């Protein structure tokens, strides 16, 4: 993996230290995992997703994502109620690798505490710094 940072970190999203993103549109937010997470996991082959209506807490687990080698927990960037899950992922989990910020979205939340909770999330610049430092650690 060569420099400069090969990972996309789009503007306008909120990020967690656990490598999830949230795109807020009015009262709801779409949630997925970042390009860095998808590339680090490599081929994503299976997901377990919450049922619609489930309440999630900020940084609480809402499901799992599995690559060939490993299982990882998915953490909610924001508290709220699950109002939708990406059904395309059932048969095409590789959409997360191909398009982590668009067709690879995972759940949609009706957020309940956005104003308070967004303060603890990372901005794109902050998340980019985090990824750079993780990458540097891995290369050394």
């Amino acid at each position: 993996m060569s420099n400069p940072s090969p990972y996309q970190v789009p503007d306008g999203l909120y990020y967690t230290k656990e490598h999830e993103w949230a795109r807020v549109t009015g009262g709801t937010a779409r949630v997925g995992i970042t390009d860095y997470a998808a590339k680090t996991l490599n081929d994503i082959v299976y997901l377990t997703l919450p049922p619609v209506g489930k309440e999630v807490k900020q940084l609480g687990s809402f499901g799992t994502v599995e690559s060939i080698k490993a299982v990882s927990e998915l953490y909610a960037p924001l508290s709220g109620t699950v109002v939708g899950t990406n059904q395309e992922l059932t048969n095409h989990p590789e959409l997360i690798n191909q398009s982590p910020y668009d067709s690879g979205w995972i759940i949609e939340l009706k957020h309940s505490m956005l104003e308070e909770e967004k303060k603890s999330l990372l901005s794109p610049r902050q998340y980019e710094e985090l990824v750079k430092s993780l990458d540097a650690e891995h290369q050394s």
Partner: protein
Amino acid sequence: MATTKANKHTPLYEFHRTHGKMVEFAGYDMPIWYTSTIEEHMAVRNRAGIFDVSHMGRVDVTGPDAARFVESLFPTGIAKQPNGKSVYTLLLNEDAGIVDDLIVLKVEEGKYLIVVNAATKEKDLRHMERVGAGLNFKVDDITEATTMIAVQGPSAVEALQPLTPLPLADMKRFTHAFSTVKGIKSVITRTGYTGEDGFEIIVHDAASGAMAVWEALMEGATPCALGARDSLRLEAGLPLYGSDMDEATNPLEADLGWVVSKDKISYVGWESLSSLMQKGPARVRRGIVMDERIPRHGFKVTDRAGEEIGVVTSGTYSPVLKRGIAMGYVKTPSPQLGDTVMVVVRDAPSNGKIAKFPVYDDSMYGWKRRPHQQL
């Protein structure tokens, strides 16, 4: 994180570091993938892939008593094999527990080349020293002086042939020959760890010559890393030492009874093995193909009533079947092929079926496939 300054490097390390995602494996910095485990896996099933397996241990055993030594070491008759045979066998302890699984090349009467697992090399060498005490032979560790590359897949002959004068298509599986690869003295053995036809080459160069061989092989084969090596061997049903067997496992349980030469006595583990053969194993290694979900090492296996009958020792996603697959141990009398069992995936029992290995259709994939059936 996973990488530390103490780890060893193979002669192809610069290529891996530049093109791959690195992890620690058996004390080496090795690539886990270059592009995608699934792409690399399917390159081997459909065409050809190359793997750096230089981390595996390679030792020469030579001397007047070398034949007596290998006879006392292995449950398989090796000394009686014709020169040029490559034999899969096991190292056993006195209790018939598996110390390692390995390939022995019978070069000639007084000369053998043994290829062992990376993580067990030092233990194996100590074991050999104990067993060989008093015999006249020597063991030379040639691991760091050589580079070992596996060329695997239905196009393996086409990928390797341009680099060597040895007529590869004439070689039988599980034989080897001494020749050159890109002009460098090499051993070529028609063996592998993927279920496919292919070769493993031991090149007597651990520097730029080895890198040149790797680059030349890339003309006809895809670089593949440890992730694909693991998913390929699991589809094929080949056990991984340390995960699927260890010193608490005997060959009968591991479904490797076929390596034991029935007419052979007086090797390490023979007495224990004879009594085990009378009793039969209490558990046995089997394959499982899941309806959904992915089994992992350590997950419990139950029968349909929920009673625990075994454990998963390796699990992954099969790129060929596009399902979760596993190998593990189930107690005897074991469920039959096709029987439904459950694997407990993080508290959720999930259906699977006892399956034969390889898990893929062997008329479509693997070394038995019909010729010219390349997809």
